[in-house]
């Protein structure tokens, strides 16, 4: 991706440009290496205090006992909370995401209020509140349930938005066809649109898994014995807390990185089950909450035929948080829907169709395809 973008901004450099780039390249590389070496030297010999790189401190942070007694139980606690929180978040998200799409005004308003509230409250505040509340109410393992519930509420609100935009991204025909078959609006939503939206949102849900995994570390603030807390504990014995934290950070990084790769691999598998686009947005996980630039990103991702000018009409406006109420209208206004070839009419500068009969050759091409049933050769 990086090479793609960068190629846009500068010409293929000539011999002089290449030389400059090579020099800057080396200078920058050396500067970064020096910074790294300076930090390591500082750690090796801090002003007062002990050598943080000595094996004496690293050994207890890495040996087998550290793994079996601390990191692995901690990692298991983290994974346990993550998985339960994700399952809960999907359930929460489905209930309130669908709730926001139902015809009934009351259900829509209530679901909307709950989702907006859940999105605005910081996860840490939710955790502290549930933790103290559960402890006073006398529930067993309050810290665990506080971590899970806080994550369910926040990430559930994100999933709810994903469900909503997943339904918004479906081609109109899906709903029109089901209404034409005599299903009610609710039936169409529940039986036709939502199942497809779920497949479309799965990759984004896996990206959200990374957020959940990272946020479980907040649990260490409320004394939940997750990976971070266990690594602190291990550090209390040998006073090598910095080293044990580095080990924990590496484990977190590897886990999150693997999940991110999974999120990139999923879309092609999911695309088979849905008519909505299942590819992840080309932005960071944080942009899942993104209200309104989705359509602009979609425009950016549209290929430009022959590298020429931008298309006059774009791939249909994708359902988004900000303007989802109007997404059908906007799509109609734009007059272009990738999934409906008859809308792909080319216009000239004055807004008149380029051809006398824009649908003519569509029909011509369409006929032989229609005559031959698929699958029979």
């Amino acid at each position, binding site marked *: 991706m990086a090479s793609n973008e960068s190629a846009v901004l500068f010409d293929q450099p000539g011999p002089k440009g290449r030389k400059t780039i090579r020099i800057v390249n080396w200078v920058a590389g050396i500067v970064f290496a020096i910074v790294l070496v300076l930090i390591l030297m500082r750690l090796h010999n801090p*002003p007062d205090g002990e050598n943080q790189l000595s094996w004496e401190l690293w050994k207890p942070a890495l040996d087998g006992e550290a793994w079996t007694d601390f990191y692995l139980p901690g990692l298991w606690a983290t994974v346990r909370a993550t998985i339960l929180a994700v*399952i809960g978040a999907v359930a929460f998200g489905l209930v309130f995401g669908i709730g926001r799409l139902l015809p009934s005004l009351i259900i829509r308003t209530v679901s909307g209020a709950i989702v907006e509230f859940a999105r605005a409250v910081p996860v840490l505040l939710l955790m502290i509140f549930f933790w*103290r509340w559960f*402890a006073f109410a006398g529930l067993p393992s309050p*810290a665990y349930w506080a971590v899970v519930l806080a994550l369910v509420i926040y990430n559930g609100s994100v999933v709810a938005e994903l469900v909503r935009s997943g339904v918004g991204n479906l081609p109109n025909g899906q709903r029109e066809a089901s209404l034409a078959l005599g299903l009610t609006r609710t039936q169409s939503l529940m039986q036709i649109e939502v199942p497809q939206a779920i497949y479309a949102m799965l990759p984004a849900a896996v990206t959200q898994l990374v957020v959940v995994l990272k946020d479980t570390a907040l649990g260490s603030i409320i004394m939940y014995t997750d990976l971070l807390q266990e690594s*602190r504990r291990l550090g209390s014995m040998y006073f090598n807390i910095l080293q044990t934290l580095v080990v924990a950070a590496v484990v977190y990084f590897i886990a999150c990185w693997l999940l991110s790769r999974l999120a990139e691999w999923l879309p092609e598998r999911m695309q088979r089950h849905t008519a909505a686009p299942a590819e992840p947005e080309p932005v960071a996980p944080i942009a899942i909450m993104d209200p309104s630039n989705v359509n602009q990103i979609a425009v950016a991702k549209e290929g430009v035929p022959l590298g020429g000018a931008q298309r006059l009409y774009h791939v249909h406006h994708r359902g988004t948080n900000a303007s989802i109420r109007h997404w059908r209208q906007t799509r109609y206004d734009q007059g272009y829907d990738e999934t409906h070839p008859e809308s792909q009419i080319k216009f000239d500068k004055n807004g008149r169709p380029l051809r006398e009969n824009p649908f003519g050759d569509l029909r011509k091409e369409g006929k032989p395809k229609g005559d031959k049933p698929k699958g029979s050769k």
Partner: protein
Amino acid sequence: MLRRAAAAICALACVFAVSACGADDADGKVRIGIKFDQPGLGFKKNGTYVGFDVDVAKYIAKKLGYSEDQIVWKEAPSKQREAMLQNGDVDFIVATYSITDERKKVVSFAGPYFVAGQDLLVRKDETSIKGPEDLNGKRLCSVTGSTSAVTVKEKFANEVQLMEQPGYAECATALFSGIVDAVTTDDIILAGLASASRGRLRVVGKPFTQEYYGVGIKKGDTQLATKINNAIADMIQDGSWKRAIADNTKGTSYTPNAKYNPPEPTEGEK
């Protein structure tokens, strides 16, 4: 397809929900709440638990008729101790649990088995700090939510700078690297830290409060309190109490405040 996935997810959720509760009410076991994160008092090592609190708990369990493999150790974080006793999650708690009137409203205590006092932990070569009064203009570390640092600031040294950290290990690390000059909490906890520091930290040794560590039990269980008190008295008498302290503060010159120790366990019998 979706329905099957939903069923699988539900099954998975059940597994995780149950494993979290971890109901082990197997008969013939005694469940004891201790700290898991305090070197010298209650700490996980080589898959078992070690520390002064653990030794006391083991001794009491033995006197109550349980062998060591019948003990189920449970973590009792400071803020959850009352709730754990009230719910019956544990039979008793030995976890640096000070006897206070506030707590006695909801739980009962046996003991005390030790009288700790708030003290200061400093670097070995530190000479200017001999007591809490010398902390003016110095930097002091304590754990989040504890009142010990506030006590120092209000009673002894108004100009002390306070730093709050989630655990004592963080405080000790900060002390090593020189960003704070002292750590404050109960002396026995500090002695445990000093013992783990391989001789680079020392306890000042002038405790300026008294904390009576008791064994937390369910409210009103006078019978259990009597049994535990007898066990503690035995432990003090046969010398294993002294041995336990010496073992767990190895490498430091720590001695418990002789004016109050060993204590007379009479609490909770009515």
